[in-house]
């Protein structure tokens, strides 16, 4: 790793101030950033650790909407969100491994927007609201491409707000070595329709399968998808699977998620 300093602010305001200096970068759980730093793929002069900011940790109910602080660990979401958001809790409990879940955070995952990360699919499928230090951004406007988001320089995800679905589920087809999603599909059913978000598959990162949403909004059953097919255009091809294979998996995993939704 290159040399850098670490600051550990205890308030959001102090973190935002610390991030104003040149080449400063936020550090959340570090489960992606630290390996990146070890590979010398990033060279910040200063890391601003977000893990000591108590106002960014924990779950709370805001009139039926679940608010999760940006520095909340995956393990906490897995253990505490299940009552109102079983799909979300199930997703969090399958990220990485137990030790990774004890460090990695929802804000870090959302802000990084890895094309194979799980949380972006949950945020998009719930129609979640991303809360930052300066504004609120709808999930539909937040994820702007692979490793790219609507966040500005020095802007941090302080919380994510998830409306409560009537039923939800996340199904991940794991790449067997890394256990990242080859394709992961989050299905969330609301009173006004069904949302289907897909991660791992597209070169543009997480996206909504709108055709599937329309079919499922009319009939929330795996059979409703029978006549549909997903185009392989823009899907990822790598040594683990072709674009065609991933496109096929989108439908398969959506069906499984619908069947398992509760």
């Amino acid at each position, binding site marked *: 790793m290159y040399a850098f*300093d670490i600051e550990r602010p205890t308030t959001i305001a102090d973190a935002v101030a610390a991030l104003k200096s040149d080449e400063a970068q936020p550090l959340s759980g570090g489960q992606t950033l630290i390996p990146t730093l070890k590979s010398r793929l990033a060279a910040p002069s200063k890391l601003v650790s977000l893990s000591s900011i108590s106002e960014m940790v924990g779950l709370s109910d805001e009139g039926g909407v679940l608010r999760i602080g940006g520095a909340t660990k995956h393990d906490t979401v897995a253990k505490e969100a299940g009552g109102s958001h079983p799909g979300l809790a199930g997703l969090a409990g399958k990220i990485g491994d*137990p030790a990774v879940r004890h460090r990695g955070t929802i804000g870090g995952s959302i802000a990084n927007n890895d094309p194979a990360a799980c949380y972006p699919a949950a945020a998009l499928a719930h129609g979640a609201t991303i809360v930052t230090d300066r504004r609120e951004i709808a999930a539909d406007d937040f994820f702007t491409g692979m490793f790219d988001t609507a966040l500005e320089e020095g802007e941090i995800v302080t919380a994510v707000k998830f409306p409560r679905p009537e039923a939800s589920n996340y199904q991940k087809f794991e790449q067997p070595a890394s256990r990242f999603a080859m394709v992961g599909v989050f299905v969330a059913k609301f009173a006004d329709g069904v949302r289907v978000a897909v991660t791992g598959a597209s070169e543009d990162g997480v996206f909504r399968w709108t055709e599937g949403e329309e079919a499922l909004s009319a009939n929330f059953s795996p059979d409703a998808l029978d006549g549909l097919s997903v185009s392989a255009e823009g899907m990822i091809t790598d040594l683990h699977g072709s674009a065609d294979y991933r496109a096929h998996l989108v439908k398969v995993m959506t069906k499984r998620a619908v069947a398992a939704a509760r």
Partner: protein
Amino acid sequence: MTKVTLTINGKSVSRDVEGNTLLVSLLRDDIGLTGTHVGCDTSQCGACTVHVNGESVKSCTMFAAEADGAEVTTIEGMANADGSLSVIQAAFQEHHGLQCGFCTPGMVMTAANLLKENPKPSEHEVRAYLEGNICRCTGYHNIVKAIMAASGQDVSAIAAE
């Protein structure tokens, strides 16, 4: 340099660390607790697993500066007060849960975390919880058996294939 003060295996320790000093470097190189191993250094193998505030973390993927004020337990802190092996350690010995032993510190720390959360795990739950700990010798059967035995369950039916 940043000054960090933390509790390691019950003892308070203060050190000056660089921003990019990993927790595992502090433990091994500064404090001399070399029981915690570095296998892959890419947070995949779990040999460096320690407990920070009671939860398993990969100490190669956490900065020492972030452990300021924390309570850290390493494999050196797992034995009983009289120096005898803890239940989990004794079960690893009894059931041949190790061969070369390199992954064992991480396996024991992860097992301890599992049994704290889930005192009577099923065989499937043990295997799932060990997802982030890699062993290249044993084939895992005897590790699973040792952890099941440490939880007080009958392991005679678990085959060591």
